[in-house]
């Protein structure tokens, strides 16, 4: 199990009911981690519409979760 912190923004935060959570995951990569959390929180957005960031930089969905890292799932942005 890998201990990580996950950050939620916008509609994901509303659905999760929290802006961040710490958890232990057995997911082999970030996509599997998202699928796990999507099932738990009922996120409407599929991973295909998100980007993922680790420790403040964009990352790849097939990167494995690193112990102690801060993972952010980035819904489609709407600034401007």
């Amino acid at each position, binding site marked *: 199990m890998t201990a990580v912190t996950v950050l939620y*923004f916008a509609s994901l935060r509303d659905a999760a009911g929290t802006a961040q959570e710490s958890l232990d995951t057995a997911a082999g990569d970030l996509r599997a981690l998202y699928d796990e959390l999507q099932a738990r929180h009922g996120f409407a*957005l599929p991973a295909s*519409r998100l980007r993922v*960031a680790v420790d*403040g930089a964009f990352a790849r969905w097939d990167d494995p979760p690193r112990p102690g890292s801060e993972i*952010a799932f980035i*819904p*489609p942005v709407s*600034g*401007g």
Partner: protein
Amino acid sequence: MKRFALSEVPIDVEPLHARLRRADAGACSSFEGWVRDHNDGRPVRGLRYEAYAGLAEAEGERILDEAMRRFALVEACCVHRVGELELGELAVWVGVSAAHRAATFDACRFIIDEVKLHVPIWKHERYADGDAQWLHPGAGDAGGTTR
């Protein structure tokens, strides 16, 4: 000095504009995004911007750096509001200066287009009918409706 910033308070344009002024700059273009009273035909009452601040600042800076490399600019900067905004408020300001005007138009458009595509900032709109939602462009507003 950073070229991109988030602001939790109303954007003060004057000092940003002043950064663009240089003896060798003959042209300046700026873009302002204002909170409109409607979106997709729905009357809007107000909105809130939320950002993933660290990543937004890094992405914004990357975009401004890219604009400085791609276009013959003298200077460029961009500030995006976060927090609660009222109708008519300035949501984002982009300004660039250059020796000649073509570069300023191209760069200004490039910066706002890229910011809207890539910088992790989200808009939460409140409508006149009491409804509200996060906007997640791309396939309808799958973010769903929240109150």
